[in-house]
C-alpha cells in the first residue's frame, strides 16, 4: 500500500494538492487583469485580425473589385443575407456576353458571421473587416451595398 493511500497519507496528500490549487489562484490574483474597459480604451483597443465584424468588398485604386458575379457567396449563405443583381454585357472584341455585378447587397442585420460566403468565393472578392461599431437606429440602414 502506498503511503498516499493510508489514512495519514491522504491528509498530507490532500493538503499538498489543495495548496497547489491555492498557489495557482494566488498567482492569478496578482496578475494583470484581462478586462477591457471598452469606450475608454478605444484608442488602444486591440482586436484580433480574425475577428468577423462586418463583410466588406475591397476595391483597388481604380475602384475595381474582384467580384465576377458568380453568385456562389449568396448560394452559400444559410440566411439569405446576400443578394446580387447582375446584368449581361457583350464583350466588344470577342462578341461573347458576360455577367457583371450591378449591386451587391448585404444585410448586416441577418448575418450570423459564419464566414461561409468568404470561404465560398473563388476570387477572394469579399472579406471580413474589424469595424465592429455597427449599431444604427434603423434596421434599413443595416442593408449595405458593398460594391462601388
Amino acid at each position, binding site marked *: 500500500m502506498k503511503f498516499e493511500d493510508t489514512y495519514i497519507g491522504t*491528509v498530507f496528500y490532500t493538503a499538498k494538492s*489543495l495548496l497547489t490549487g491555492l498557489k495557482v489562484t494566488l498567482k492569478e*490574483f496578482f496578475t494583470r487583469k484581462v*478586462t477591457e474597459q471598452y469606450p475608454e480604451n478605444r484608442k488602444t483597443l486591440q482586436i484580433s485580425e480574425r475577428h468577423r465584424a462586418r463583410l466588406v468588398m475591397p476595391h483597388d485604386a481604380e475602384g475595381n473589385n474582384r467580384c465576377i458575379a458568380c453568385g456562389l457567396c449568396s448560394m452559400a449563405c444559410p440566411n439569405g443575407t446576400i443578394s446580387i443583381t447582375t446584368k449581361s454585357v457583350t464583350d466588344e472584341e470577342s462578341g461573347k456576353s458576360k455577367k457583371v455585378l450591378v449591386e451587391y447587397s448585404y444585410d448586416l442585420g441577418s448575418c450570423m458571421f459564419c464566414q461561409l460566403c468568404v470561404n465560398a468565393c473563388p476570387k477572394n472578392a469579399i472579406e471580413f473587416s474589424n469595424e465592429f461599431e455597427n449599431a444604427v437606429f434603423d434596421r434599413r440602414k443595416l442593408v449595405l451595398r458593398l460594391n462601388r
Partner: protein
Amino acid sequence: MIDFSSIVTAVDCFLESAMPHQLAIVVKCILAAVCALVAYLSFAILMIYMERKVCASFQCRLGPTRVGKWGLLQVFSDVFKMIIKEIIEIKDSDRILYNLAPFLVVMSSIITFSCLPFARGLQVLDFNIGIFFIMAASSFGILGILLAGWSSSNKFSMIGAMRSGGQMISYELSMGLSILTLVVLSGTMQISEITEMQTKGWFIFRGHIPAVIAFIIYLIAGNAETNRAPFDLPEAESELTAGFHTEYSGMGFGFFYVAEFMNMFIIAGIATTIFLGGWAPLYIPGLEGFNHAMCYIPGSIWFIGKTLFIVWVLMWIRWTFPRLRIDQVLVLEWKFLVPIGLINLLIMTICVVMGWTF
C-alpha cells in the same frame, strides 16, 4: 491605546444621572442595538463589495467599475433594487414560518456579531461564558435555514435545507473542538479576557503546533458553517436552483444574503479574537521598541485589519476549490476533522499541563 470602556462608562453615567434607572437601561439597550445594527450593515456592505472585487481579481477580471468611482455605489444600488422588489407570497407555504425564517437567520448573526470585541471595551455583550454563548447563538441560524426550506413547499428548498442542517450541525462539532483547544490554552471563556491575555503574544504563536492545527480546522469548519464554496451544497445552484432560499424574493432573500456575508465576517472575527489576538497589536517578546510602535495603531484597526485578512483567505479558498459532494463533506468532517480535532485537543492539554506553551 484608547480605552473605549471609559467612553462607555461616561455615556452610562450621563444616562443614569439624567433619568430613572429603569429608563436608563432601556435607553442603553436601544443605543447598543442601534450601534450594533449600524456596524452590522456597514460591514455587510463592505463585505459584499469586497467579495465582488476579490472574486473578480481571482478570476482575472476587474469587478464592478461603472457605478460610482471604482464601482463603490454598486452595492448600494443592489440593495436598493432588492428593497423595491415585491415579496411574493408562495402558494401552500407555511406563512408564519416562511416569514419568520429570514429573521431567525439574521438575528442569530447579529447576536453573534455583537459579541465581537472591536477594541478594548468596545463590544456589546461580554460575560464569563462568551465563547460558549457565541457558539450557541450562531448555531440557531441553522433553525432559520431549516424552517426556510421546510415552509416554502418546494422540494429543492427542502433538500437544500436538509443538506444544510446535516452539514452545519456536523461542522459545529469540529468548530467547537478547535475553539475548546484554545479555551484550554487560555483558561477562560470570557472574550475580553481572552483578548487581554493575547497582548503578550497571540495564541497562534503561544500555542504553536496545536494552535496552528486548531486554526486550520477552525477555518475549514467555519467555511462550512457559512455555507460557502467549497461547502455550498445547501444552495448548490446547478442542482437546487438556490437551495433553501429558492422561494424568497426581495428582502427575504436579502436577509439570507446579508446574513451569509456577515457570518463569514463573524467567523473571521472569532478566528481573529481567539487565534490572532483580537484587537491586541502584534507582540514579539524582546523587541520592546517594536512592540511600543505597534501599540500606536488603534485596536479597532488591528481587529478589522486581521478580520478582513481572514475574510480574504476565506474568499481565496472559496474562489479556488470546486464544490464537494454531500458524502465527501461528511467524510471530511467525521473521518478527518473530528478525530484530528480530538487528538489535537489532547495534545494541547498535555502541552498546557506540562507547561510547553509560551
